[in-house]
């Protein structure tokens, strides 16, 4: 069962934002009154606020950092507090992609002390900084140190963008398992592109979150699935 606050952390490029956007849409589909806060003060491009229109159409309240999110200013929108103060919301917090980015969470420590939350560590086995269990553990601990919170679960989001195969997902599942044994943290989801979900049926022990890819590069924006498969040039 999801806690009221879902905090998404991990190394940039791991696919945190894609996961956060998909998770928020799923929570909304389940009928939850959902808010997504883009708290990324590290990455200037490929941000969840870029999907604001889609999210708002799905009834999700979108909160972005200062200047509509387009300036790289480490200032937080005070509207983020509404997620903590209005307990009718289920909140997804998309946190910037490294330990420094995770520091923004420390500002909400007094609120988090009174809250039930999940702090998910999004793991991509193909990212060199988190490619082994030892490196992933060091990264996880650095994030925990900076944000002054403990992670509660692991999300296997192993991919190679357009070159992803089901084998990549399984490789990530093995790494997540290893990290899970080292930390005692459960693997909460395997985030899997929806076209690989059938192929992986029965091969993943934990829950699967089927991913729709929203965070596209400009040349990937097409209208058909067939074209989507032609991305890689």
């Amino acid at each position, binding site marked *: 069962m999801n806690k009221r606050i879902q905090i998404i952390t991990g190394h*940039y*490029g791991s696919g945190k934002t894609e996961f956060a956007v998909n998770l928020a849409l799923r929570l909304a589909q389940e009928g939850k009154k959902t808010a997504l806060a883009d708290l990324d003060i590290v*990455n*200037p*491009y*490929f941000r969840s606020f870029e999907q604001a229109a889609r999210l708002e159409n799905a009834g999700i309240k979108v909160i972005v950092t200062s200047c509509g999110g*387009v*300036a*790289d200013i480490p200032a937080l929108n005070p509207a983020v507090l509404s997620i903590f103060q209005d307990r009718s919301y289920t909140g997804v917090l998309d946190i910037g992609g490294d330990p420094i980015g995770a520091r923004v969470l420390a500002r909400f420590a007094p609120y988090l002390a009174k809250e039930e939350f999940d702090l998910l560590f999004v793991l*991509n086995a*193909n*990212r*060199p900084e988190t*490619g082994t269990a030892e490196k992933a553990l060091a990264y996880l601990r650095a994030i925990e140190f900076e944000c002054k919170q403990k992670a509660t679960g692991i999300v296997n989001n192993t*991919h*190679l*963008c*357009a*070159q992803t195969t089901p084998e990549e997902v399984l490789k990530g599942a093995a790494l997540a398992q290893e990290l899970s044994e080292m930390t005692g943290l459960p693997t909460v989801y395997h985030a899997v592109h929806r076209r690989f979900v059938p192929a992986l049926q029965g091969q993943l022990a934990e829950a699967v979150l089927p991913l729709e890819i929203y965070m596209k*590069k*400009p*040349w*990937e*924006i*097409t209208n058909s699935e067939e*074209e989507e498969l*032609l991305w890689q*040039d």
Partner: protein
Amino acid sequence: MAKELWKGNEAIAEAAIRAGCKYFFGYPITPQNEIPEYLSLHLPQIGGCFLQAESEVAAINMIYGAAGCGKRVMTSSSSPGISLKQEGITYMCGAELPAVIVNMMRGGPGLGTIQPAQGDYYQATRGGGNGDYRHLVYAPATIQEAADYVQKAFDVADYYRNPVMILADGMIGQMMEAIEWREMPKRELPEKTWATTGTKGERKPNVINSLYIDPNLCADHNDRLAKKYAAMEENEVLFEEYNTENCEVLFVAYGTPSRIARAAIRQLEKEGIKAGLLRPITLWPFPSKALKAAADQASVKAVVDVELSMGQMIDDVKIALEGCKPVAFVGKAGGVVPTPAEVCAAAKAAIGR
């Protein structure tokens, strides 16, 4: 080697280390910050030095100093920061110092925006500094190319004793792609006998300088530099052709717009229009001969230049074509990226469809 997922800026930084760069001096600016960030962590681990300078001007002059000592050195910045480095770049060309300079372009003019753009083409290819100088400009279109060409750039810089620029739009710095680390072919490089490494009392001191106060000596210096630049034009031109044979529309684009052009080519194919792409990989020297040859095909009705600017490379396209075919332009400046559909529409308009 297995593929890994790298962010462009990180890959550029790692490529520099793999090419033997041990020194980096720079000043932060979006969208290239992951380059200094990565090197600040990793250079000290290999006995190198990362230094955040007090400004871009200071950083480029530190590059001048380290290059003068014969060391492999890099700096990176984004558009407004590269403007500040122009004085240092002309001094380095004048003093014949090898180094790699990365410009991860953002929207301008002035402070502009942090979103991707290609508004620094003129500055990179014409030189924003004073005097008759040139330097190679590589324009990667993928993260794999960024990783490859950064490694190559160090060799080429040493080979010619001249700075080399990597010119990319911010998207290349910020996006993620699967890459494979591969070693680039190495050039045979002369020993750096000119470097200021200490005489040990055994030779006359080497002097690194761009000042030639006697006009005759300065003219000779310029003649010699011109010969070096001519050799680069002769030997270093790089480009890629995609689907150009018997095409009706010929796109010219570099960096990420070339990938938007490719998406447009696939769309046009569905509509029965054969389109091709000539992608300059070196912006200076520009692949003029190859472009002219591709455009000279009887099948080509129009050349369509695609840029994230208001039209800068288009001048080189027109010079190359010598008026042989009409040239149309599609592009946007200031951080907005045209869609494949907009590029298709421009191509159809150019051939009257």
